[in-house]
């Protein structure tokens, strides 16, 4: 756990404590379980986004992909009576394919990731709307896939806590992503390509292949979360479903220490970033803050947290300078901080 992750954790605990003091219902099992469920849903595609950000790219089509694949998934199992296991496989395959296309356009055709994925954002959203003729896709009343529903949207009682399965999914994804990013050779290449693509190429790393892999992983994970989200909402209005989610994902990644210049970020940080964002949403409703202030509260808490962290860092810096001690290491740059001098 890096210092940056730790700052974020402290911020989460502080906000949580304050909320719990004002409204103890915040800590009720049901509420925690609901918030955890949201974290599970949003965490997976935030991790997906982090992969692309780490290699110095960006993926703006997350929300549209969630809408398109969600619509297709529901359509497959509800209207085409396809076995849900096959449907899951098809949707994930579609996600991987989208990632492959994005990665290829970025590397082989050398189009800026922002342009590629912006076009993705527009095209997939349009495709979803056109396919459904703008109608909401849903299960309708009584439609039931007990096994699938239990797996994706169910909760299991663990020591009295109804643990949402989306959290289990996030946990699995987190562990795998953590090992892949922080312990494997592949992860090292991701960071290397993100930091200095030229140097990576000179070191014999196929930066194109690494970049494409990052987009493929992102696509696959996004598809997976699209299924979970579809099963949670059980209804998808193609015009709005998942819109802005790319911003959530990027925000979680950036809060978690990713830099949009690439080469930085930790998986734990991204998950903590998601937790913070979801907690803020929960807080607004629990404290009876007017919904119109929802966004403002989120923004203010994030900004205050980052500022406070930055303030402490600078003070520590100055204190150590005054005492003539060694500085804090550059690598432990704090939460949201631009970069070392």
């Amino acid at each position, binding site marked *: 756990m890096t210092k940056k992750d730790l700052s974020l954790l402290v911020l989460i605990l502080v906000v949580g404590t304050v909320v719990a003091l004002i409204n103890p219902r915040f800590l009720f099992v049901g509420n925690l379980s609901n918030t955890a469920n949201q974290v599970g849903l949003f965490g997976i595609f935030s991790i997906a986004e982090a992969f692309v950000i780490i290699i110095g790219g960006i993926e703006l089509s997350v929300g549209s992909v969630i809408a398109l694949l969600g619509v297709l998934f529901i359509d497959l199992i509800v209207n085409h009576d396809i076995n849900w296991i096959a449907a899951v496989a098809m949707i994930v395959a579609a996600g991987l394919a989208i990632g492959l296309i994005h990665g290829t356009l970025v590397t082989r055709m050398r189009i800026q990731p922002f342009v590629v994925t912006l076009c993705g954002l527009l095209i997939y959203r349009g495709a979803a709307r056109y396919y459904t003729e*703008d109608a909401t896709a849903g*299960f309708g*009343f009584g439609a039931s896939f007990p096994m699938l529903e239990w797996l994706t949207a169910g909760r299991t009682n663990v020591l009295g806590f109804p643990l949402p399965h989306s959290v289990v999914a996030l946990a699995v994804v987190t562990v795998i992503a953590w090992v892949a990013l922080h312990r494997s050779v592949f992860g090292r290449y991701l960071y290397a390509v993100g930091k200095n693509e030229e140097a990576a190429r000179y070191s014999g790393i196929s930066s194109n292949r690494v970049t494409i892999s990052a987009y493929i992983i992102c696509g696959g994970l996004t598809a997976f979360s699209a299924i979970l989200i579809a099963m949670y*909402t059980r209804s998808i*209005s193609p*015009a*709005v479903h998942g*819109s802005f989610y790319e911003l959530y994902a990027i925000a979680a990644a950036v809060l978690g220490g990713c830099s949009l210049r690439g080469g930085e970020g930790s998986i734990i940080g991204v998950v903590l970033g998601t937790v913070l964002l979801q907690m803020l949403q929960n807080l607004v*409703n629990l404290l009876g803050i007017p*919904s119109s202030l929802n966004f403002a509260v989120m923004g203010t808490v994030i900004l205050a947290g980052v500022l406070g962290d930055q303030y402490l860092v600078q003070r520590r810096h100055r204190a150590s300078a005054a005492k003539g001690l060694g500085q804090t290491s550059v690598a432990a740059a704090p939460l949201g901080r631009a970069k070392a001098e």
Partner: protein
Amino acid sequence: DAADKKVLAFVVNGASDFWKIAEAGMKKAQGELPNYELQFKYPEQAAAAVQQRVMDDLVAAGAAGIMVSAVDPKNQTEQLNKVASQTVLFTTDSDAPQSKRVAYIGSSNTDLGKEAGKLMVKALPNGGKCVGFVGLPGADNARERIEGVKETIKGSKVELVDVRGDEIDQTRAKRNVEDILAAMPDVSCLVGFYSYNTPRIYEVLKEAGKLNKIKIIGFDEDPITLGGVKEGTIVGTVVQQPFEWGYQGMKLMANYIGGNKSGIPANGIIIVPGKVIEKANVDDFMSSMKQMLKK
């Protein structure tokens, strides 16, 4: 004291002036319900998931009753049931008939559409091409209104040739009207399906100097729409009565929670009919609106 008051929440499907009127109704009800705390909730986005989350949080916070305008009632049934199992649930605006909600209070969008269709046929005795404008063409209320219009004009020479969507972006809403005027010089009537569409139509036609050449039919009670009706440049507008939903709905809910279930019919459906506002009755309507919003 405040902490002991039971909370009743009115959860809408997105922010708009329309709901301000309902909120006014709710505030009137609040005056008559001292033992309850009435809250009005706008989800930050018009998405089922976001709305669901607001309701989950309200239940977690211990709300005694929730009245909701579901974003996607057809597919939200199960989640609505989840809410209904933990608190008293009313629906409004758009019903979820298969859910375990206690009652629905609102209007029928299809009926409203039919009223607008009648206005169109009346305004264009010789027929003509019409284009509609709407925020989210896929949303149920939009679909039902369009359906109602089409049903009524079927057989007449009035045609609804296209409905343009704008994602509730005012700039696009206005530009859509401009583009249609450019693309279809022979259009003879424009219909604003969402509350803000009609004022945008009015402004574009005014700027183009075509106010009296092209008929405008609207929905809802935007001040500019009403001004146009009064001026005679807008044929008429079909309004709902959200004030009544907020007022009656909250009182019914409080009664229900208090054990008095008499106000709720067997099928649970309470229709507050819409009104057609034309030049003849616009003044009355405007003054009564003023009255409502003052409180």
